[in-house]
């Protein structure tokens, strides 16, 4: 599904990703953890095609094609979805309108007919129930005035509507209370399937109790310095990142 090889990326004159290797197979859930500023969001941004990030080396292959060659919207239509760490507020752009336009672009790309208003609303209601979303959020401008938790819920709701094949969730858990966390995790789990992969960026093991990953990676200083199973997350929670960063094998610059 996703094959990242020796990926280097910079922002401005700053080298942030310094050789990432990661393979995500269909149906797998990978968690990425790591200290603040280690490059997790940068990696997510490079995969989604964020402007201002320059790939200075390496390759990313998605479903057999060069992902880096595609515009952000082409990636989205191919099935890449990024749940933003900081979803932007867009006054004047209606949430439902955006979703309908986005979904129809995706469907067009897949060779499916566009949904009419009725079918769209049926789908929306079903997915809103999944996330226990408040109806009113739908008719409001994108994220405008949403609470932190509502923004994160909205991200997962959009994912549920767009049905991506690769979902990258960037700290979707931060800012959620435990009930909201359970709901959001429930929504994510409902979308797990053998042909959908997920990359879940988080600081907290807690989320991984609900979204149980197949693999856990530690990103530090722009590299994946350790990979393991779900136990690794527990170990990180207990010991912090210090013990990994000081390991000589991965400390070279």
């Amino acid at each position, binding site marked *: 599904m996703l094959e990242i090889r020796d990926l280097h990326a910079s922002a401005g004159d700053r080298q942030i990703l310094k050789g990432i290797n990661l393979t995500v197979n269909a149906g797998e859930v990978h968690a990425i953890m790591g200290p603040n500023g280690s490059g997790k969001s940068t990696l997510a941004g490079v995969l*989604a*095609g*964020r*402007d*201002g990030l320059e790939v200075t080396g390496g390759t990313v292959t998605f479903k057999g094609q060069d992902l880096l060659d595609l*515009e*952000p*919207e082409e*990636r*989205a*239509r191919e099935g890449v*979805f*990024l749940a*933003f760490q900081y*979803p*932007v507020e*867009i*006054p*004047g*752009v209606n949430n439902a*309108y*955006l*979703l309908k*336009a*986005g*979904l129809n*672009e*995706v469907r067009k*790309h897949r060779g499916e007919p566009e949904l009419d208003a009725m079918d769209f609303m049926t789908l929306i209601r079903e997915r809103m129930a999944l996330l226990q979303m408040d109806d009113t959020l739908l008719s409001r*401008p*994108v994220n405008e005035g949403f609470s932190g938790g509502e923004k994160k819920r909205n991200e997962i709701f*959009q994912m549920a509507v*767009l049905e991506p094949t690769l979902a990258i969730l960037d700290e979707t858990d931060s800012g959620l209370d435990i009930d909201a966390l359970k709901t959001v995790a429930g929504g994510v789990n409902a979308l797990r399937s053998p042909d959908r992969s997920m990359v879940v960026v988080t600081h907290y093991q807690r989320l991984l109790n609900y979204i149980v990953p197949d693999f856990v990676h530690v990103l530090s200083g722009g590299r994946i310095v350790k990979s393991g199973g779900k136990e690794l997350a527990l170990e990180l929670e207990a010991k912090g990142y210090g013990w990994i960063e000081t390991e000589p094998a991965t400390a070279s610059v």
Partner: protein
Amino acid sequence: MTQIATGADSYAAQFAASAQASALPNALASLRDDAFHCFDRLGFPTTRMEDWRFSNVAPIAQTPFVAPERTPTYGQAALDALSLPKLGGPELVFVNGWFMPGLSTTDGLPAGVRARSLAEVLVSDPDTVLPHLGRLARIENHAFTALNTAFLRDGAVIEIGAGIVVDAPIHLVFITTGGGVPVMSQPRALVLADANSQVRVVESHAGEGDTPYLNNTLTEIVVADGAVVDHYAIVREAQAGFRIGGLFARLGRASNFSSHAITLSGAIVRHEAHVVLDGEGAVCTLNGLYLGNGQQLVDNQTTMDHAKPHCDSYELYKGILSGRSRAVFNGKIIVRLDAQKTDAKQSNKALLLSEDAQVTTKPQLEIFADDVKCTHGATVGQLDAESLFYLRSRALSEAQARQLLIHAFAADLLSHIKIDAVRRQLDTLLTERLPVGAGG
């Protein structure tokens, strides 16, 4: 058409000819005389004048415009081709400043409301208009006001009797068409809204052809005590067309006046709105939405003159500029000594879609009362990169994303437009006219 010498001479000659051709009431003839002398003395403004510093009207000064006579051949097909909004109510059509009865209708006006041609009123009923013409639009210091007044022959007169509510908006359509000759049109509109009446007046300005023309319009509106007047000026001049427009309004006690200045096209478009809040508790809203592209110059000038206490004013102007277009916004707020408890808000926001587009904005506050609230702000920005990325990451094309964001920028102004046909058409025009490619 006769060949006219360039420069002031041609205007003098044309003024003399026009004065001879029209049998006007004495009071008006002398107002026109005074106006021409003012114009002659002032000449066209230059960028050395403070109010015109960023608005170079040399292309207007240098074109030998001709004041046309009636154009009776202008027909319905030509009018339809302009696809102006259909408001479904009374509609007065003017071509090169002259009323066109065959293209107009006053069906559906309630009793106590009249919508007539100024030329006709000047013959049949001059006392209705003479006390008002030129009272708000002063000729002394403004060359274009003087020019319009000097050539004043026809226009629209709308009278709404006390307490009458007019449902259907009254549409005034001003078309300039020279058929290859650079014509100047000087239409005039006078709206007299008597106490507690309510009316909506929509001015559509449009033009034809590739030849430069000047549409120099003046609208005077008297909003009596308790009256509610909503006014719209929608400017869709031809690419080569120049439009200078003055809107003058005087607001009585507890009246409510709003005006929406919408500039969609034209080579040079200047819109001035000067409002005197002249009765306690009056409320005035001046909104503006302007698009600029190519080499266009779009200039908005407002004066909000708070003359009496307890008046509120709101101003929101938004511009969307691409290409090498330039925009000017000068918003003057005057709060006179008497005008305690004034609440005046002003905001100008511009969205620049290209590197070469430019906006100059200058708020001007002249406050003589001490217990007042005045806020003003101006912002100039580009489309938000993070929002663009967000929308594209949700599968929208870059063009779609840009269009949505541009639309969103204008959304609050559009939502204030209460006439559905106008709002819907603007919605469509915004989508059609806006450059969505990254280059603008």
